[in-house]
């Protein structure tokens, strides 16, 4: 009998291959060892990247998923291996990133006995996953993985965790892999209501100052072309959220900038002057809306959204359009009148000029000696490829890089938006690069965040992933310091860092590295980095106490966006 049966561990790997997973990011350990043993036999069919920490593995899987649109796969052992995934799960859930994470678990007969490296990861990860399950029997492995992939990638994507006990991995069972095509409690296709489209079109056709806000939903719904056609025809100005950046090329004539606490001046300010607000695949995050009581109160709101729980959650929609924005956008395009809104877009351009004079001038062409983050990113922007992926960590550098990076292609923006996870960038950049070695991946990090996952330089060394790391070093936890300066009387409580010699660290990992402290040589250093064959580490010492503007301070309205 045993001869015709398959070992659970092999079923796991074969199931991943059946789901067309190309790469696993993981870290071995006791309870997942049978699966690692199986992996040994499949290295030609599926790649495995050994990170230096499970958090690195899951962030790498996130980076891979974000640029590829595929499900990121992550493998870890029980106990600490599993708990180290939690931050990444929470991050992937709030940023709608499809992941399947498989964790080993102690043998079923030991469950609940505080066995070595036993932890209730299903319980712990429940609020941080779209779905999770524990598998204790070999026959349940393949169906759980099939269901997991289906759930992760369908509807609003998200992370799934499958916890598999050691006995299920070592037992033998039949391998008949059947992909999951759906089940009754989970509706993946929501037909768009025609009446909602008609109501929305009516509002739009009557509007004088309509305004589109687009988010990552456009990318996740593969609706970039539909968004562009809608804007081409309707002539409506459009602004992007942090994660929506790239869904529409910034060169599009209707594109008016970026929304949010550190977004552009005009798109924030004019939110309170539009008469119809059309939100597409975005969830009105508080970093976008500021004070909700004073957010777009003058406007009728149309909300195109797949996730019913997002409709009316933060901003009441006058016309909710529930469903996939790929469908609803094209239905709406058919119903709206061809128009131009030159005068209204002109208002955005006027304010854009104010921002250029008041903020961008200082950021890009500073008069002071110290380098600014803005000029570094501006240089990167000059020399990068059109489809270069920008991966950022969290903090000042993230906001500056986002502000000055010119997004032209979809899936070129990888950052931790909702959760704001410091330490995300380096492993996420590695994952993004693993999807496609030929694509330029620029990883911009701060001196705080990089030290949270700096060990992943080891993974970059081992994989030779040609990630270009740009460390913007101001020897501060810069964003916190900025808030301390502005809102806490400059009481710089535990934000100054004594940093190591980053160049020596990079070099110790065998990664080509260069440090730039002055304006002379910056341009050349960036050029050197971008043409370098292989990973590169560029440290740029920037002004210690520089601030990110514009800014909507916490509790303020979007119309109170400050230029200084």
């Amino acid at each position, binding site marked *: 009998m045993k001869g015709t049966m398959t070992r659970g561990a092999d079923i796991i790997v074969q199931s991943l291959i059946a789901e067309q997973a190309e790469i696993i990011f993981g870290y071995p350990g006791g309870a997942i060892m049978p699966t690692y043993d199986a992996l040994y036999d499949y290295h030609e069919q599926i790649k495995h990247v050994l990170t230096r920490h499970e958090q690195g593995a899951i962030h790498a899987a996130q980076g891979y998923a974000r640029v590829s649109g595929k499900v990121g796969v992550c493998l870890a052992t029980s106990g600490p291996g599993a708990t180290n995934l939690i931050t990444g799960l929470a991050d992937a859930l709030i940023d709608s990133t499809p992941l399947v994470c498989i964790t080993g678990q102690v043998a079923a007969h030991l469950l609940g006995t505080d066995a070595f490296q036993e932890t209730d990861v299903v319980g712990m990860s429940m609020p941080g996953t779209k779905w999770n399950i524990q598998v204790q029997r070999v026959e349940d492995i393949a169906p759980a993985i099939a269901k997991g992939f289906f759930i992760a990638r369908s509807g609003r994507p998200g992370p799934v965790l499958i916890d598999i006990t050691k006995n299920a991995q070592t037992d033998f069972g039949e391998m008949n892999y059947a992909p999951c095509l759906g089940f009754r*409690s989970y509706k993946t296709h929501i037909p768009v209501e025609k009446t909602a489209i008609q109501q929305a079109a009516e509002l739009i056709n009557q509007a004088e100052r309509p305004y589109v806000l687009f988010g990552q939903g456009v990318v996740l719904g593969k609706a970039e072309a539909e968004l562009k056609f809608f804007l081409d025809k309707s002539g409506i100005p459009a602004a992007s959220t942090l994660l929506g950046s790239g869904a529409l090329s910034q060169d599009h004539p209707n594109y008016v900038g970026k929304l949010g606490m550190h977004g552009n001046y005009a798109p924030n300010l004019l939110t309170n002057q539009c008469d119809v607000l059309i939100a597409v695949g975005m969830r009105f995050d508080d970093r976008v809306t500021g004070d909700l009581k004073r957010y777009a109160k003058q406007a009728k709101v149309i909300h195109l959204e797949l996730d019913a729980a997002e409709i009316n959650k933060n901003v009441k929609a006058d016309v909710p359009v529930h469903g996939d924005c790929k469908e609803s956008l094209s239905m709406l395009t058919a119903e709206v009148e061809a128009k131009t809104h030159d005068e209204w877009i002109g208002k955005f351009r006027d304010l854009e000029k104010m921002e250029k004079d008041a903020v961008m001038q200082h950021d890009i062409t500073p008069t002071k000696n110290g380098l600014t983050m803005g000029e570094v990113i501006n240089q990167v922007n000059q020399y990068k490829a059109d489809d270069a992926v920008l991966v950022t960590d969290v903090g000042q550098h993230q906001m500056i890089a986002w502000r000055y990076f010119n997004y032209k292609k979809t899936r070129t923006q990888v950052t931790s938006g909702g959760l704001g996870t410091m330490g995300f960038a380096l492993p996420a950049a590695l994952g993004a690069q693993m999807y496609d070695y030929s694509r330029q991946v620029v990883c911009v990090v701060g001196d705080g965040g990089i030290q949270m996952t700096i060990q992943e330089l080891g993974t970059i060394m081992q994989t030779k992933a040609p990630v270009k790391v740009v460390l913007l070093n101001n020897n501060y936890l810069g964003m916190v310091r900025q808030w301390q300066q502005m809102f806490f009387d400059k009481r710089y409580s535990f934000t100054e860092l004594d940093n190591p010699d980053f160049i020596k660290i990079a070099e110790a990992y065998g990664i080509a590295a260069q440090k730039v402290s002055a304006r002379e040589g910056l341009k050349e250093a960036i050029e050197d980095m971008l043409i370098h064959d292989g990973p590169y580490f560029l440290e740029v010492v920037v002004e210690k106490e520089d601030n990110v503007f514009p800014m909507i301070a916490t509790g303020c309205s979007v119309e109170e966006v400050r230029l200084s």
Partner: protein
Amino acid sequence: MKRYTIFVITENFIGILNRITIIFTRRGINIDALTASESRLPGIHRITIEVTATEETVIQLVNQIEKIIDVIKAFHHEDDAVVYQEIALYKIPVAKLDGGLEKIIRQHNARIIAAEKEFVVLELTGHKEQTRELLEILKEYDLLEFARSGRVAVAKRMLTIDSFVK
């Protein structure tokens, strides 16, 4: 703030109750009562949750509950849209059983469902106000123990769950 009854129709899946309660706890909302049972249909469970909140919040809670993968459907109702009952048990020392208590039992339509050497157990089914009223009275009879179930309820509208379970 009002009292609402939330019905959740779910697959019988380990951990589903936990996923549902997390939605309340993360917002710091207390669940007044909760019952879970089988439904009329095999494999389908129904969970009845009683909660005091604003309608806006309840709608958001229901949306987030319905978003849970193994939840089939969730509804919310105000009290007048549901028929509901709760069951209460009262444990009283036998020594306190006298004519006065018998009268109280009759007046409240309660009944004695168990009699042991040292105590009797009374049962009353009704709305919370009724079971609470009896509780206050019985406190003077050296009440030893009191337990009340969560609400079991059915909606007044003629919609069955069959249409959601396909």
